[in-house]
């Protein structure tokens, strides 16, 4: 029972892969698997940030726009101003950090609902990106910068390396640091955790800052991979990231779930798109199929989760501790 609960999303992923490998012989080839991992990398980086925000009971709708703004600023600094690479990257990360700080402060200290402030932040940052680039596209970066998106380290391509590193760091934070358990405590019951001495507001602010920084990091990988930066990139990211988090078993109510599941969620979404291209499914049908499959995945995931956690609660863990 416990095995099933903890691995229900892995089973979903395996079932999906098995099904597609029967339909297309190209799916399980080494090159295609690397291709899928590379395509899932950016969604995973943003998904990790979204996960910790959602665990605290919040949401970050601004991540795609923050990605766009930070990559546009980095592109201007690198290409138009001709500054060295580290400055562009640090500036992008600072922008992400700043947007996250504003989001977090507004949520924690000014008590604006996260949905509202991050929605507003989405327009604010995207608007700034338009203002800076005026609908133009900056194209063609140096090979050193493009290494981040297209190079490889020890035979593994860079986006995968970065995405894996981010995942491992956040798995560590989630499991072994006080901050990690504070995130869950705030999401489960903010008042109780405040009374038990957790500085809840500071936890919430830090969570949004991390999400902002990860969005900016995603933006850097994105533009290095695409060899271009434009203000409209990443529009679909907030909802794709939320879908990845939900498929990964972190409910919107917060307090449970984790970064590990989101990796699987990001892979599931990327695999569906990859399979539709490999199978040559009609352009008109693709969006519909993606939506339908996400609905099915999320309902299977959340239903099995509830079922298993009830059984778990009664059979295994009678203290009623958080599963």
């Amino acid at each position, binding site marked *: 029972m416990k095995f099933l609960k903890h691995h229900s999303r892995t089973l979903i992923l395996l079932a999906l892969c098995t099904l597609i490998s029967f339909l297309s012989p190209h799916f399980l080839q080494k090159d295609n698997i690397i291709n899928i991992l590379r395509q899932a990398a950016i969604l995973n980086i943003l998904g990790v940030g979204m996960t910790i925000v959602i665990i605290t009971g919040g949401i970050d709708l601004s991540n795609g726009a923050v990605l766009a703004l930070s990559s546009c600023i980095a592109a201007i600094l690198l290409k138009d101003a001709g500054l060295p690479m580290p400055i562009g990257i640090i500036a992008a990360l600072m922008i992400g950090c700043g947007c996250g700080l504003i989001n977090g*402060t507004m949520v924690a*200290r000014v008590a604006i609902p996260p949905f509202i402030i991050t929605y507003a932040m989405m327009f604010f940052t995207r608007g700034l990106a338009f203002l800076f680039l005026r609908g133009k596209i900056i194209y063609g970066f140096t090979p050193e910068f493009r290494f981040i998106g297209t190079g490889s380290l020890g035979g593994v391509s860079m986006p995968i390396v970065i995405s894996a590193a981010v995942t491992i760091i956040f798995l560590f934070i989630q499991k072994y640091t006080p901050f990690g358990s504070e995130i869950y405590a705030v999401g489960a019951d903010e008042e109780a955790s405040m009374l038990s001495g957790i500085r809840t507001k500071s936890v919430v602010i830090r969570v949004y800052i991390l999400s902002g920084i990860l969005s900016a990091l995603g933006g850097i990988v994105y533009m290095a991979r*695409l060899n271009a930066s434009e203000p409209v990139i990443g529009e679909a990211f907030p909802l794709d990231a939320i879908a990845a988090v939900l498929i990964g078993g972190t409910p919107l109510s917060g307090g449970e779930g984790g970064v590990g599941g989101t990796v699987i969620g990001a892979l599931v979404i990327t695999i569906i*798109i990859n399979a539709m*291209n490999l199978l040559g499914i009609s352009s008109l049908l693709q969006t519909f199929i993606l939506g339908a499959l996400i609905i099915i995945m999320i309902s299977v995931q959340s239903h099995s989760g509830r079922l298993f956690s009830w059984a778990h609660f009664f059979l295994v863990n009678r203290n009623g501790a958080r599963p």
Partner: protein
Amino acid sequence: MIPRYKMVAFLVAVFMIMGLILTFATGPTFAAEKKYKMIFIVKSLDNPFWDRMRAGAEKAGEDLGIEIKTLAPIKPYNVEEQLRFMEDGITQNVDAICVVPADSKGIVPGIEKANKAGIVVVTPNSRAYGGSVATWTGAQNRDVGYDIAKFGLKTIGGKGNVIILEGTPGNQTAIDRKKGFDDAIAEFSGIKVLASQTAKYSRVEGMRVMENLVQRFPDVDLVIACNDEMALGAIEALDAAGRLSKTKVTGFDANNDALKSISEGKMLATGDQRPDAQGYWGVVAAYAYLEGMPVPKDIFLPAPVIDKSNVAKHLN
């Protein structure tokens, strides 16, 4: 001592207000005492194509001495926002509205409202399927598509494997361009179309779709894309897979990145629809109409195929 959160909130507020002021200060405003007032609505700002059209429209406004306000939806290709711009224009009592419909049917209610208010409507680039429109300006998407595809197919010797990257499903330009590609392909018996998939007119989608298709098809001779953005994305994917030397890619629209890519020998060809001319002629036609001159229903503009041999004179 002021609490820290209040100071942060204050700073944020200042930051946002400054952003707003900056936005409005640089945005278009109506100056007084010009002969005619017009608004010019494009489909989005996500493609340099629309920026060129905007520049053409503004140049026409300057040349003719009329006020032009150019507008674009925040959400790309969003017809609802375009309708809102039209309604705003009607209440401001403009003389003419030039609108590039993001949706040929969806824009009709706006055109009908403008007709009722006696405002001249011109649709550059894309057609509307209703209402009373003074004129349409643009290139025949089908014909330019046919020319580009034929050029690409001839370059690969009239035989081989082809992939088509389609535009956004349901979009009129996407349908017309694809029709031109199909007509050209039908003339060559040795051509096999491996796949025809949408990449939604976007560069990142073009890269993603091509990365996936490269896995399935080991031999691709030509990729025909419905616009430059998708073609440039496909080029990045092919380049990363080390296959750009074997596969030719054609685009559509002749934006700056595509021209640069052609001069670097990466992209094979593109077609220049001259969006600036479409915008310019749209405004000129509206002006002529307001002056009581007869205006043709369709104004066709020539659109040459650009490849390495003539790219230099288009590159600025």
